[in-house]
Each structure stands twice: as C-alpha cells, then as structure tokens.
C-alpha cells in the first residue's frame, strides 16, 4: 500500500501560479463544512473545471467546434452549478466515505474516486469507501454517467472536499493541542506533532464536525507531491469480484421480489393483442402471477427457470411493432437516399470519393438487463444500474402516477453497460409489472430479449470526399448519415440547459449538436466539413461505447491511407505532415517506433495505424492483422474466426492519467470492442427484428479472436487534468484494424463488420421469444 504523508505546511502560497493549474504551485480551493455529527465536507465546483483550451489551428483548417469545446466540456459545464452538494464524510472508525453520483459498470470510476480522496486526505486507499448515490433530483444534470466525462467533472470537486476535510482535521488537532497548524504532519490517517502527540482521523471525526454549514478552504496537493494519483492501482472491488462476493443488480435480494420475465413480441416494440391461456400459465409449477404489459406478457415465479417455462407456454396474439417493414437493405437504402450533398466541386484537383456502411450492433453488456421494483399504492422503490437515475425517477413516477419524491431509485453495480444503462426502460418495465401484479418483482430480460429488443448502435453510412493537388489536401468533406439515435436519456435536457454557451450556431437538433461537439478531424486538410443527417426510424437505439466516432474515424483513416497512397507517401509520414496537434504527433511517433512500423511481414499479413483525439485525449493504435487462409479458415465450433489481429499496440495520452492501470484496462477493452465492430459482431435486421439471439450468434470478440499480444503505452502526463478514457480507445483501434485489413488484402473494405454479408448461424426461433435452456451440460463438462 502506498504511504500517504505530508510535511508540515509550507508558508502560504495561495498566489502561486494563479490561473495556471498546470504549474507547480498549490491551488487553493473552497468547499463547505456541512452540519453533521462527524466531519462532512461538501465540494464546490467552479467553472474552472471547464477547459478553455483553444486548439492550435494551423492555417488551412479553421478549428471545428469540438476542438474548442467538446461534449465533455458541455457536461462539465452543466454539472457546475450543483456539484457543491456532493460530500466526503469522515467516520469515527477512521474511514472516509463518499457516495458518488455516478454509475460503476466496470470502468473503474469508484477506484479513481477513492484514489482522489486518499491522496488529498493522506489516508490509505483501503480506508476510503465509495458507494453509488441514489437518484438525487437536486443534483439536476450532475448525475449522468456518460460521454467519458466522470473523471473530468468530478476530479476537482472530490479532491477539494478531501483536501478541506484534511485541513479541518489538522485545525481541530492544532486547537486541541494548542499548537500551530503549521507544525502538524499527516500520514496514513494519523496527525502528529513531532514525537510528542498523535491522533487518528477517526478520533477527531466528531470534534472536527461543524455545527452549521460554512465555507472553508484548503490547498490541493501539487502533482509533484502525489503518491497515489498518477500511480497504477488495482480496483478497490477486485477481491469481492474474484471471490464471487460482489453483488450486481441480478444478485440483490429484496424481500419477496421474485424472479420475473416477459414473453416478448416477434418484432421490435410489438404489442399484445390478446393472451389465450393466462390462467393456465398462472397455475404452472412455481408461477405466482401473469400480467400483460406494454410490450409483452410478464410472468413471476419462484425461479427464473420456471419463468422461462411459463413465458414459453403463453399463447399470445401480437400487434405490430415499430419497424416491421424494415430489414438491413431497406434501412441502408433510406440512409443512402438521405445523405447530405458534398459541396466542394473537384475542378482543378484530384479527388477520392468513398462510402462506408456500418451495420446495427448491440450494446448489450454481459449481465442481462434487470431491475427490482417494489411498487405500493403511495410509493415505489427501484434498484437498477442506471446512468441517469434522476430521469428514471421522474419518468417512472409519471408512469406510476406518483410524485417524484415518492419514488426511491437505488443505483446498483452493473455488469457492464457500454451505453445500455443510459436508458431506464428496464427499470420502468419492472415498475409497471410490480404495479400491475401488486407485488415486488425482480425482472430479468433473457439473453435473447437483450439482443432482439434491447438497444442497438444505429446503422450508418459515412461518405467522404477529399480533394488534393500539388502535394496538399485541399478539402475534406464527410457526410455521416445514421438511423436515428435516441437521446431521450437526459443528455438532450443538458444541451437545452447549456445551449446558449455552446459554440455551435443555429438551430441544430440534439443529435447534430452532439455530432458537432464530438467530431473533428485531426488533420489540416483545407476546407473541412463534417455533417450529420439522421433518418427517423423507430429502432431502439443508443450509443455503444461512443456514438459516432468509431464509424466516422474508421472512414476517415481509411481515406487518409488512400490519400497517402495517391500522393505516394508513407502512411505514418503522411499523417505526421498533416496533423494539427503535437500531442497526436507524439503518440503517432511512439506507436510507429514501439510497434516497429514498416517491419517485414509475410504476404497476407500487414500493419495498420490510426489516430484519434476526443475527450481531450489522444490515441494512436498500431495493429498487425493476419489474413492468410490458414488463419482465416480456422474452425471453432459455433464461432467465427476470420482474420486475426496478432499484435496490437495502443499509445494513449490521457492528459493526466489518474490510474494508469485502469487506463490500460480501458484501452484493452477499446481494442476488443474495435475488433468486434471491425470484423465480427453485428445485428442482422430482418422484417423488423434482429436475428441474433445468443452470444454464439452475436459474435463479440472471443479468446480465439483477441490479439495474443497486446501492449498499451501510457504517455507521460501532458497536463494536470484527466481526459475522458472509457470510449477513447475504440475509434482509433477500429480504424487501425480496418487500415491493416485493407493493406493485407489489397481491398478497401467498405462494409463493416467485414463478415456481415455472411449469416454465420442458424437463427433461434422468433417465438417463443426466449429459448429453452439446454439439458446436456454434464456431457460438455471438461
């Protein structure tokens, strides 16, 4: 365990490096001492968390909106007025606790928050407890987990609260001992005065408590004094995970909340016309209740297995869904028809025109969607993994006919999210079922429900036109056309509340605003425009570890390779020449060197390299892909093989890397998601529903697909602010894989994933909606 210590306070240096938090000086921060039985400090967030960084826009391209002010800045700005209400508490047992208004779904947010508190308090990491806050309506839009924004928006306020807590403990000890504060030291949760006196934080927790809420100030540590922040740390919940003790939503026990599942329609968002045998099903073994709900028929019983038996036995007549006439080809045709026109006429220049299409993909995590609901006549209590719990609370209250204050929403640990838990449709359905049955329910969607009725990353088409002449790229136009993405989870409201402060002009839709706040090209390619158009189809859509970037960047980097080839330049040298930012040039150079760019490889094996910047971070990815027949044609039972990335490298500059080990994990996950998006995993829509129904049909990356060799290089910190990281790695890795594939095969891929044209499985029946579990498990034991 890292030791936490601080020397006696140096002379006051409040004025050191004013306005320059990147400098070596210590920054003075304010927080609230809250009226409480033991010490509690509420953090206050100023607008200073919003970066005013302006990009170095070298001449040919004007800065695009994302470069000046990105989606994360918007979220940080939206969070600013209310963050003062989040608090660090110090307890008599010497621990500090913090209920973070964010969701933990594997991204390591709770570990990073614990590190911030441990650092600023001089407390061992093991003595910091971080839990997930219930929905708190007073936090307004400061309770949204998404856009890779958590670290960016809470880094300063959490550290501020912790620093003030430490300062208050020191002041309390100084007062009790009658000595100057400047003579006290803190280390590992103990305050000492020379060799004479010492006291634990726990022993001072009550005395340090404030009787009324007042402001207080303290100094943040300088980055040069950090002993925890910026060092690799293991997850705080790792031991609970490996012993099976970590409780996910699916594992929670709430009294009388019995297993509940839903028979679902054979098309997306279909409805129930009639149920022929509800009474007979209610009398099946273990079954307690049957109720018709908005999009299906719910059954409640003693075990989920008996719920599966019961829902399969239901005889239901279905009404139409919302996209019954749509299939892959009809959607693709609509997208192509809706693409916005290019505007640069290729008169005296040469041009490249390219079009890339990306299939629907499922953002389903491994833990099936689930929620527990206990709805009574005058109140309701909900347990679910929710990234926007306030919106969930308000909407569920509306649906149940209850005041918002009568609905308690607990945010529970999620087994992954990838965008899925931005939506509360599962929690709302659980509430509807509980209300109709008059009993508590533990609702789980089946795996097949998740793929067929869950959230999808929308199908999209990206067209690019680039013109070039005399060794320069003169223009770069990208027209991205997407099936509509649902932003009904709260980000839309955030945009409304901050609209006047955003650097995007005019009357853009939410989707266009988000596109403009997230997309920019990192190259000086002359006249540059990137535009979005959406086709309003009623699929259940959402983001999937980013919204537009993996597709937009994949199309862009493939065209960049084409431009380099046309202009007879090496792809790395070409990128170097046209890059706008030094940070990108640095990760590119590091990747080319560490990944041995240009090394000799056999025919059919090739390298690809790509870059991306977003969330104030920068990444280069270099991969080697093996497209030789002996690799492509490997046989795996009920799996897809195909080309294999054999070596992969991610070089990341995350500004200030709070936890390099966690950042490395995010890059690893980004690479595996990218492999899935580029090569193997997609949904095939046929007559209004995805055909995929299990993990042997939706081909997310498996061990036989993953690179045997993956290396992540975390660049030395380039600033004192963390960038976003959760989604950062997907886009460059996706693009690098596509570029490598193009080089290895000599063919420009234009449809992703590359195996989408082949249906590599026999679809499960559409009815009943959930397949029966096998019975031959013992035969397959190994």
């Amino acid at each position, binding site marked *: 365990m890292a030791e936490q210590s601080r020397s006696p306070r140096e002379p006051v240096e409040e004025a050191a490096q004013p306005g320059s938090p990147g400098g070596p000086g210590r920054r003075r921060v304010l927080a609230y001492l809250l009226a409480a039985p033991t010490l509690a400090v509420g953090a206050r967030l100023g607008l200073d968390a919003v970066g005013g960084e302006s990009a170095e826009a070298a001449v040919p391209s004007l800065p695009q909106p994302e470069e000046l002010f990105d989606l994360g800045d918007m979220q940080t700005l939206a969070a600013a007025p209310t963050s003062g209400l989040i608090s660090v508490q110090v307890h008599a047992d010497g621990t500090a606790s913090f209920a973070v208004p964010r969701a933990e779904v594997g991204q390591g947010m709770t570990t990073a928050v614990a590190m911030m508190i441990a650092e600023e308090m001089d407390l061992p990491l093991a003595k910091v407890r971080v839990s997930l806050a219930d929905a708190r309506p007073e936090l307004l839009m400061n309770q949204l987990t998404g856009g890779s924004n958590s670290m960016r928006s809470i880094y300063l306020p959490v550290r501020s609260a912790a620093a003030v807590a430490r300062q208050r403990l020191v002041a309390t000890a100084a007062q009790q001992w009658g000595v100057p504060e400047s003579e006290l030291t803190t280390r590992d949760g103990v305050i000492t005065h020379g060799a004479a006196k010492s006291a634990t934080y726990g022993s001072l927790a009550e005395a340090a408590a404030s009787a009324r809420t007042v402001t207080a100030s303290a100094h943040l540590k300088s980055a040069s004094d950090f002993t925890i922040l910026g060092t690799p740390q293991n997850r705080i919940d790792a031991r609970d995970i490996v012993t099976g003790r970590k*409780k996910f939503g699916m594992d929670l026990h709430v009294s009388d909340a019995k297993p509940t599942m839903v028979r679902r329609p054979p098309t997306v968002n279909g409805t129930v016309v009639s149920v022929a045998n509800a009474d007979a099903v209610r009398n099946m073994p273990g079954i307690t209740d049957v109720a018709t709900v908005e999009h299906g028929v719910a059954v409640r019983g003693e075990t989920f297995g008996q719920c599966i038996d019961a829902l399969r036995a239901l005889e239901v007549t279905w009404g139409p869904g919302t996209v019954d006439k749509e299939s892959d080809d009809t959607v693709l045709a609509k997208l192509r028809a809706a693409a916005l026109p290019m505007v640069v006429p290729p008169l005296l220049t040469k041009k490249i025109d390219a079009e890339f299409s990306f299939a629907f993909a499922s953002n389903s995590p*491994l833990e099936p969607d689930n929620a527990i609901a206990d709805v009574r006549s005058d109140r309701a209590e909900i347990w679910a993994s929710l990234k926007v719990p306030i919106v969930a609370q308000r909407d569920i209250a509306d649906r149940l006919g209850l005041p918002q204050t009568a609905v308690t929403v607990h945010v529970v640990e999620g087994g992954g999210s990838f965008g899925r838990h931005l939506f509360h449709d599962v929690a709302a359905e659980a509430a509807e079922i509980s209300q109709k049955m008059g009993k508590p329910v533990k609702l789980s969607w*089946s795996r097949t429900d998740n793929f067929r009725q869950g959230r999808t990353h929308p199908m999209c088409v990206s067209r690019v036109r680039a013109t070039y002449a005399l060794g320069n790229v003169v223009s770069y136009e990208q027209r991205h056309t997407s099936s509509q993405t649902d932003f009904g989870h709260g980000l839309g409201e955030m945009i409304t509340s901050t609209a006047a402060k955003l650097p995007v002009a005019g009357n853009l839709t939410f989707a266009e605003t988000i596109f403009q706040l997230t997309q920019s090209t990192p190259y000086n390619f002359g006249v540059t425009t990137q535009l979005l158009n959406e086709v309003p189809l009623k699929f259940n859509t959402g983001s999937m570890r980013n919204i537009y970037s993996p597709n937009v960047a994949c199309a862009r980097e493939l065209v960049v390779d084409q431009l380099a080839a046309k202009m007879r330049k090496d792809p790395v040298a070409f990128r170097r020449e046209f890059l706008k930012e030094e940070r990108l040039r640095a990760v590119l150079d590091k990747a080319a060197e560490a990944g041995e760019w240009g090394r000799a490889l056999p025919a059919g094996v090739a390298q690809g390299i790509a870059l991306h910047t977003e969330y104030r971070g920068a990444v280069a990815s270099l991969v080697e892909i093996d497209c030789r027949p002996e690799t492509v044609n490997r046989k795996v039972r009920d799996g897809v093989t195909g080309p294999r990335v054999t070596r992969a490298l991610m070089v990341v500059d995350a500004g200030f890397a709070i936890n390099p080990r966690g950042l490395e994990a995010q890059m690893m*996950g980004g690479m595996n998601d990218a492999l899935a998006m580029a090569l193997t995993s997609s949904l095939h829509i046929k007559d209004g529903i995805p055909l995929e129904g299990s993990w042997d049909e939706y081909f997310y990356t498996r*061990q036989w697909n993953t690179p045997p060799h*993956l290396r992540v290089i975390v660049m030395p910190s380039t600033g004192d602010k963390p960038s976003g990281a959760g989604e950062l790695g997907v886009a460059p890795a996706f693009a690098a894989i596509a570029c490598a594939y193009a080089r290895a095969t000599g063919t420009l891929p234009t449809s992703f994933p590359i195996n989408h044209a082949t249906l590599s499985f026999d679809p499960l029946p559409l009815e009943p909606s959930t397949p029966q579990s096998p019975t031959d498990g*013992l035969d397959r034991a190994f």
Partner: protein
Amino acid sequence: MPSHTFKLNGEQITVEAEDDVRLLWVLRDLLGVTGPKYGCGLGVCQACTSHINGKAFNPCSVPVSKIAPDDEVTTIEGLPATVGKDLHPMQEAWLDLDVAQCGYCQPGQIMTAVAKVRRAAEDGRDITDADLDEIRNICRCGTYTRIREAIRAGAKNM
C-alpha cells in the same frame, strides 16, 4: 415437490425443486449462491461456470435431477477451500494482474481457468496459446489479454 441432495462447496445439502429446474436457478434463486452468474441460460456465455467433481460445467444447462447425492458441486465461493486457503492461486493471479473490469464474467472465467490448467497438467504439459484460444467465456469488457496472463501466472502456483 421432489427433494434433491448433493455436496455443495463441501457441505451436503438438500433442496426442494421441480426435477427439470436447471441447477443455476436452484443455486441462485433457491439457495442464494450468486457467484455463478446468469449471462445467457443457453450454455454459451459460460458466466455460470462451476465445477462438478472437479470438471468445469454450466449449471444453466443441467436439470437439478441429474445431480446425484455423491456429486460434488463447487462454485467460485467454494474454490479457495479446495486448496485449503483464503484464495485459490488462480484468484491470487487475478488480483495480482487486476484482471477484472465490471467483474460479472470473472467467477466463471476463474472456474474455467482452473479446469483448463488441471486438464493440461493431467496431460503433463503447460497451458498453451491454443488452450487459451479454446476458452469460450465471454468478457464483454474485453479483459481477454489480462485473463491470458493471469491463467499462465496462476498455473505456476497450482
């Protein structure tokens, strides 16, 4: 209702359940043993992987009536006791390499890893890349690289 008895994590237990209820639901819904996770109920994702008489299997794909009184079922909760320690060497390796992200698949991954290493040891050889490529457990967070490293590290101490 039929009664079923078997050895679960070292203890002889008896539970009442219909014969065809899959063991996963008996463990999770009736006995409150939640280490084995529900990820698909189809014998595909492997999140529920546990051991029966030392071999890896998917409780989601076995009716409880097929479990005999002398069968020994071990879930992640009972793994450390099989080596008489607080943690099995494979769990230690998982901690050392900080494998988990969300953690939902990891109990199943660890149970699969232990069985894989045992089979290789029975063949008198070390775990190979080909062995690792055979592992079917889904990790939707994409922790595959660290899983591979942890299995090799854990195998050394088994």
